């Protein structure tokens, strides 16, 4: 149990609330500092690419967003296991809070990718294997959010979304493989093939700083969203208990 004990201790919603209330201001501060440093390094310090020019700077936003889009789904899959195996309410709060975040970062990755594609490929959208896989990931996020919003009762929504998340996570490698295979089958001639030169430290360092800053941003937003969700659920329970207590005293409303 050794390494898990801090995590299991936090699984108590009240303790989690107290912990996140203390951690959030610090996390927000560190995130803001890291974001400022990352953007400064990426937009000012890093040199322009000899081939891509200034557009290479889009990469400092694009790569971390793509990474977080994938991490969001991983967080959701792990939380879904928590929902189905341990039936823990906090696991579902984590899964629910991660979905819009993951979708937003996946969308950012798609948007920055297509903005980068305009000067590089001459068009905003190319049915490139990676872009297409991300589009499918984005659609899967939207499907999950649609399923959650369609089910009124939180505990039912939690189980349904957990099953869909796990079915999706089984499918993601299959989809990725299929899309890559499909892409080699219909290789469009216009796609500029990027070579894979060793990345220069002047590019790599800002990229890593940005990746760290974006990850911190995700963690901060996720914690804040989880706190909001906990409050929202407490409010819902309160409203239901007051509503179920009220009719005993109030007369039936006229039809």
């Amino acid at each position: 149990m050794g390494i898990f004990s801090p995590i299991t201790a936090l699984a108590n919603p009240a303790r989690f609330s107290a912990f996140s209330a203390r951690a959030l201001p610090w996390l927000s501060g560190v995130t803001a500092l890291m974001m400022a440093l990352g953007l400064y390094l990426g937009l000012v310090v890093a040199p322009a690419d000899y081939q891509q020019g200034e557009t290479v700077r889009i990469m400092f936003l694009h790569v971390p967003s793509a990474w977080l889009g994938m991490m969001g789904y991983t967080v959701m899959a792990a939380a879904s296991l928590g929902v189905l195996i341990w039936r823990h309410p906090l696991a579902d709060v984590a899964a629910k809070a991660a979905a819009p975040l993951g979708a937003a970062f996946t969308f950012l990755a798609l948007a920055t990718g297509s903005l980068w594609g305009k000067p590089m490929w001459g068009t905003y959208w190319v049915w490139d294997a990676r872009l297409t896989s991300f589009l499918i990931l984005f659609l899967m996020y939207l499907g999950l959010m649609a399923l959650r919003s369609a089910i009124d009762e939180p505990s039912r929504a939690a189980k349904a979304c957990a099953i869909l998340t796990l079915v999706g996570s089984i499918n993601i490698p299959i989809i990725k493989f299929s899309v890559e295979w499909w892409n080699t089958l219909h290789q469009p001639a216009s796609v500029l093939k990027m070579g894979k030169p060793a990345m220069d430290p002047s590019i790599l360092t800002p990229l890593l700083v940005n990746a760290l800053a974006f990850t911190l941003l995700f963690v901060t937003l996720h914690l804040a969203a989880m706190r909001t969700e906990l409050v929202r659920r407490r409010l819902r329970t309160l409203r239901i208990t007051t509503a179920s207590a009220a009719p005993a005293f109030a007369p039936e409303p006229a039809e």
Partner: protein
Amino acid sequence: MIGPLRAMLMRDLALASGGSAGLGLVFFLLVVTLTPFAVGPDLALLARIGPAILWLGALLATLLGLDRLLQADHEDGGLDLMYLASAPLELMVGAKILAHWLTTCLPLVIAAPLFGAMLDVGPTTSLRVALALLIGTPALACLGAVGAALTVGLRRGGLLAPVLILPLAIPVLIFGVAACDATRDDFAPLGVLGGLALGYAVLGPVAAAGALKLLRD
């Protein structure tokens, strides 16, 4: 254990023979009919994209019956009897999927070469399309069952199941269309399609039954 499964299968087949089975076929024909209006009546172009049209039409047609696949049983109490049956729920769902496939998907497979002729798809390619659909549609039916199980009892479930399922069906579509390519000598895409069908034949009933058990109220 065989008894309840056979009863389930026979019941669903008997229910489907009431007339709803042909609806998917008509929808498939409509998709094939609409395409020339969208891309123009150029037979050379239609022949080239024919397998893709047939696959898209079949894929959309398999979605048609999904909203009733488990919802009807949820409403009339049949689902509660399925929980109580002596056979595992996974196999009961499997029997339902088989009945759904026989009534909705098999007619599409049989009609595909006929509709292929309307798109000037050659006889060899038409048969390949039918073969690919024969292997691929069970995978679609199994995925569809997961969507149907997740949306059981929802007021707005009708459109939701296709939205959840279609992104997951993309590998089946990719390899299904690739398997129709008459210029390929090897059967590699067909093999992958078969693998997908077998994988989803396990995943579909297990995930659908899991969802039904967890969401049972």
